[in-house]
Structures are given as C-alpha cells and as structure tokens.
C-alpha cells in the first residue's frame, strides 16, 4: 500500500522558510495557508505508521498516527492557524518564521514514534520558541530569553541522557509506554525532562518568568505548544504513574496561589497555565480511560481558551502599552469587544456550563472521584474555584473595571479581533456540543457532563466564589511587587554559589595547584630544554662550524697554487702529464 504521507510538521517548518521570500500580499496569504494546509493534512490522515526510516541500524518513525496523536495534531494545527490570524498585522518576518517552526516542531513531537525523532523536534521547539521572547527586543526580554534557553537546554540534556540509558536497557528506541522500566535511571531522567517542559514545580519557574516577556503575538504560540506536547508525551509514556497524581494536584493549587499575588496580567495567566496543566498531569497519573480522556480533552480545550486569554491580554498590552494590573482600570468603556471575547475565555477556563472547560475539566475531577481519591478531588475543586477567582474575576475586574485609571484605548486591529472571535467560537462550540470533541478522544467516552446535579453544583461553586471575591476585593488590590519562585535558585542562589567558588577555588588554583605545577613541571621542562640547547650549541653547532673552518683553510691553501706565473703553471702541467704516463705504464 503506497500512500503518500506529508508530515504536517515538516510542511510548516519548510514552508516557514519560504515565507520571507514572498512579496507582502502573498506572504499574508501564505501565513494563513500554511497552517490551514497542515490542518487539512491532519484531518485527512488515517491511523497507521508512516515515515519509517532506518538510520544507523535503528528504526526511526516520523509518522505514528493513532487517535491520541491525531487529536493533539488537530488542536496544534488549529491554534497555529488562529495564532497566525492573530499575528497577521506583525511585520516582523523572524517572528512568523519562529512561530511556524515552533508549531511544526510540536507536530513533529506528536507524531514521533521513536525517541530520536522526538528529541530532534523537542530541541527544535526549544530553540525556535526562544526567538519569540528575544524578538521583543527589550533588555528584560533578552535576559528572560537567556534564562528560558538555559533551562530548556538543561532539560534537553536530561532527555538525551535518559534516552541513552533507556536505549541501553531496552535495546530499542521505540517510544511507547515506559511503565515496565519504572524506577530506573533512564525512566527517571526522561520523566524529569518531560516534567520540566510541562512546567511542573519545582522545575516550572521558567514559564511565568518567560511568557510575560514574549512578544504580544508570540505569547499566544508559546502557551500552546511546549506544555501541551509535554502532556502528550506523558500520556504516551507515563500513563498511570502514581507520582503524577500528587504532582498534578499540588501543581493545580500552586498556580492558583501564586496568581493571587500577581500584578503582571500575562504572568498571572502564565501561573494559570501551570494550574490547568496540573489537572492534565493529575489525569495522566490516575491513568483510567476516563482520566486519560479527560487529560486529552482538557489539553484540547485549554489550548484554545488559554490562547484566547493571552490574545485578550496581549490586545490590551498592544493598545495601551500596559502590562501591570495596578496601572489599568476602566478599560470596559473603550475596549468592550476585547472584554467580551476575553470573558468567553475566562468562562471557559472556569468551567462555566456551556463553555469548553465545563465538559473537559469535569472528566478529570470525576475520574479522581471514581478512583476514590478524596484529597485529590478536594484539591482540584479548590483549584477550580481559584481559577474562576483569578481569571474570571480578579483579572477582568482590575483590568477592565475597578477604579478607572483614565486609560482610553481603541479596540485592537481587525485580524486580532477575528482570531479572538474564532477562538471564542470554538470554546463555545465544544461547550455546547461536547460530542464533537469526545468523538476524537483516544478511549471510548461514557461520560455525560450536562447532568442537572453537576450543573447546579458548578453554578453554586462559581456563584459563591464570586461572592467571596466581592467580599474581599479590597484585599486583592494588586501590589507593585514580584513574587519569588524556584527560579530564585538560578538567579539569586547562583550568585552565592559563585561567591563560594571564586575565593577558595581561586586561591586553591593559583597558590596550591599553581605552585605544584611550577616545581614539578615547569622548571624541569625548562631545565631539560636548557641542557639540550647547550648540547646543540657545543656539539652540533661546533661540528658544523668546524666543517666550515676546514673548508675555509683548504681554500686558503689552494689559493697559493694560483700564483699567476706561467712557468709554475707549465711545471705543474708537465708534472701532471708525467704522473699520468707513469700511471698508464704501470697500471696496465
């Protein structure tokens, strides 16, 4: 069966490099056409194994297509398309190139059937996404980009080390469920690398550090790919790992706790990414069909509504230049459409009925219930209340309502509103017709989200969370401060380490090791060299000089033979002729 299979990721990556060469209008068309083509490619794919290549005796599979990878590929290409619509107005070619390469890398990770191709696309994602931060071209962004790259390079090294160890143990590079190797070093290193990309605390401080520093349009791409492809690989390889249940639940609360303290709008949303990914990781850990379905569905819905939230905050950033909540307020008067579209995203993340979050988050929480994990159930529900508190109440209140900061802005350009509108439509569509999403989930779905009890319980929780917010709103005034996260260790903690290293180590190096080097190595070597030089000059040189002198003396002696007297020449010639005659006579 000879089927032509086009890797949508490679389509995006190679297409991205063609884009800058096109004239302006064709470029705009291309920016939409490329991700649309990738989406159509994914939609038309049938499950199977494609793109198998033999390399150095190993089988690399670039196209492992099954329900799980298909559903992730759909949402990755959809958000690539919506993100490019949002970024149509941007004139910076490098941003489009980086964004599309990044999206292509995520698709590559999704379809990778073996660890080597996974690693290639994993690193490609890290390297291309850092440009979305650097291209903001401000000192804070450049610094944040370096920290982001540093963290991801370390993660990539962990992944590589884990892959090598796993390969030596398993004998194959195929990427499948790794529970058989649980507890081994390779398993642990790969898990750490995946957890780092999923921004699990304590390895996740890079996310709230870097995402607010990204460009307005770049941030939309960044929220979608790194963490969700990490969730995908965790579902693929680590489903059912009990550790993940607790990590996920703690993560969900961690994000919500930090979000209370945040002043920067996009940093608050970034902490919510950590919170929501916690639900997905918890689902992966629980490992039942409902839990894994829930993790997948939640990832799908999360990409869409989180992108919408970042689009809204980014639109405010672009139109007002403001990023801190303490500087904003009263924007509902001049940016009502942005507010409305943002609120759809906020309702979706808060799991309000009729929006996407309601039909997906409840799967994970119900799975926790069915697996009889009361603590996890309570933690996840608490985080749900916290999510609505921040994203649905605190952020819109201080950004759009609240005390009027006197900022008057316009609505963002049409393409940004169109992108937000389409994404909002998708959030509502999934919420109203969950079957559309459920149909594509990896396991058969036996879950009905719209039960009367569930809806009333959710409405109650949300309503009373709002009550709590309005009661305590005075205490939630954003302060002009930053919060410390685990990135303190490589930002501040590292200077302590350097101070420790520089004095004692420096002294050890120069005074102790240096002295030894001086006496054991340097002086003997120089002494031997001096000896050889003396030998050279006394013996070798004088031999050469002697030969020269002898030749000179011989020449001086021969000089006397050339006297200029013809009689002497005649005498010598006669003597010579006589000698030759005698020689001829007696030698014969």
């Amino acid at each position: 069966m000879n089927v032509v299979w086009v890797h949508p990721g490679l389509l995006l990556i190679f297409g991205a490099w063609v884009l800058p060469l096109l004239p302006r209008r064709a470029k705009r068309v291309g920016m939409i056409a490329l991700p649309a083509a990738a989406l159509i490619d994914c939609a038309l794919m049938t499950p199977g194994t494609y793109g198998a290549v033999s390399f150095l005796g190993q089988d690399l599979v670039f196209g492992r297509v099954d329900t799980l990878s298909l559903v992730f590929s759909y949402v990755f290409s959809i958000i690539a398309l919506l993100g490019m619509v949002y970024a149509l107005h941007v004139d910076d070619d490098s941003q489009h190139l980086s964004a599309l390469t990044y999206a292509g890398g995520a698709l590559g990770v999704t379809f990778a059937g073996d660890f080597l191709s996974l690693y290639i696309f994993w690193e490609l994602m890290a390297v291309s996404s850092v440009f979305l931060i650097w291209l903001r071209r401000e000192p804070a962004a450049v610094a944040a980009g370096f920290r982001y790259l540093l963290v991801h390079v370390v993660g990539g090294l962990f992944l590589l080390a884990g892959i090598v160890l796993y390969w030596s143990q398993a004998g194959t590079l195929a990427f499948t469920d790794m529970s058989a190797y649980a507890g081994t070093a390779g398993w642990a290193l790969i898990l750490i690398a995946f957890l780092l990309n999923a921004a699990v605390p304590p390895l996740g401080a890079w996310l709230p550090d870097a995402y607010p520093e990204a460009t307005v349009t770049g941030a939309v791409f960044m929220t979608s790919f790194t963490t969700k492809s990490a969730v995908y690989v965790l579902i693929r390889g680590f489903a059912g790992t009990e550790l993940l249940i607790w990590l996920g639940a703690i993560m969900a609360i961690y994000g919500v706790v930090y979000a209370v303290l945040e002043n920067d709008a996009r940093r608050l949303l970034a902490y919510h990414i950590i919170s929501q990914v916690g639900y997905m990781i918890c689902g992966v850990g629980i490992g039942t069909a409902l839990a894994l379905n829930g993790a997948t569905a939640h990832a799908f819905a999360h990409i869409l509504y989180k992108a919408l939230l970042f689009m809204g905050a980014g639109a405010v950033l672009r139109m007002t230049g403001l990023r801190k909540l303490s500087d904003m307020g009263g924007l509902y008067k001049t940016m009502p459409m942005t507010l409305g579209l943002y609120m759809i995203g906020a309702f979706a993340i808060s799991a309000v009925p009729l929006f996407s979050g309601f039909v997906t988050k409840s799967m994970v929480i119900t799975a926790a219930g069915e697996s009889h994990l009361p603590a996890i159930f309570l933690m996840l529900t608490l985080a749900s209340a916290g999510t609505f508190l921040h994203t649905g109440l605190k952020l819109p209140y201080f950004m759009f309502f609240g005390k009027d900061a006197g900022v008057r802005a316009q609505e963002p350009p049409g393409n940004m509103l169109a992108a937000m509108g389409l994404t909002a439509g998708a959030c509502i569509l999934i919420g109203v017709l969950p079957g559309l999403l459920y149909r594509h989930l990896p396991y058969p779905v036996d879950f009905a989200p719209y039960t009367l009890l569930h809806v009333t319980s959710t409405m109650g929780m949300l309503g009373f969370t709002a009550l709590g917010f309005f009661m305590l709103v005075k205490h939630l005034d954003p302060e002009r401060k930053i919060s410390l996260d685990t990135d303190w260790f490589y930002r501040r903690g590292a200077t302590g380490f350097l101070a420790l290293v520089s004095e004692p180590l420096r002294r050890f190096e120069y005074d102790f090791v240096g002295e030894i080097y001086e006496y054991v190595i340097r002086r003997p070597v120089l002494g031997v060299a001096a000896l050889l030089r003396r030998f050279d000059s006394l013996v070798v040189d004088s031999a050469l000089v002697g030969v020269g002198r002898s030749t000179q003396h011989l020449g001086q002696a021969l000089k006397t033979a050339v006297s200029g007297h013809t009689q002497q020449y005649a005498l010598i010639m006669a003597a010579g002729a006589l000698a030759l005659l005698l020689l001829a006579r007696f030698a014969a």
Partner: protein
Amino acid sequence: MSFLERQLEDLVRLRRIKRTFYVGLGLVALAEIVMPLVFGAGHPHFAFEGIPAWGSLYGLVSCIAIIVISKLIGKVWLMRSEDYYDE
C-alpha cells in the same frame, strides 16, 4: 455612553444588578439543596458531597481560603520589590 457604562456608572442600576446577583445566588444555593431531594442523589463518590449545597459551600470556603492563605504566604515570604533581581 456605551451600554455597559450606562449600567455600571448609574448607582441605582448598579444596586439593582447587585440585588439580582444576591437573589441569583440564593436561588442557586436553594436549587442545590432541593435538586438531590427531588431528582435523586446521583452517584456521589464521597461522603462530603452529601452535605446540602456542597458546591456553594465549598466554593465560598475555597475562595476565602485561597485569598487568605496566599496573601499570608506572600506577605511573610514571597513578595519582594520589583527590582529584587536587578543588580
């Protein structure tokens, strides 16, 4: 003045919105207590789900708990000045 401005800037209208909100809250809490009695309790996974108006109660408690605890952790430990990392 846009529609939203008219609703929110006028004190009378604002008070009406607030009253509607409180009435709505009361209705939801009531519905939560009454529904299980009328339609059957569904499949509660845990004992605490049987508490009347469980969703509303836990929502309020969670909200207050998150705000109080987070602010406490922030004040005692995590919050620093904006130029903490700048040297």
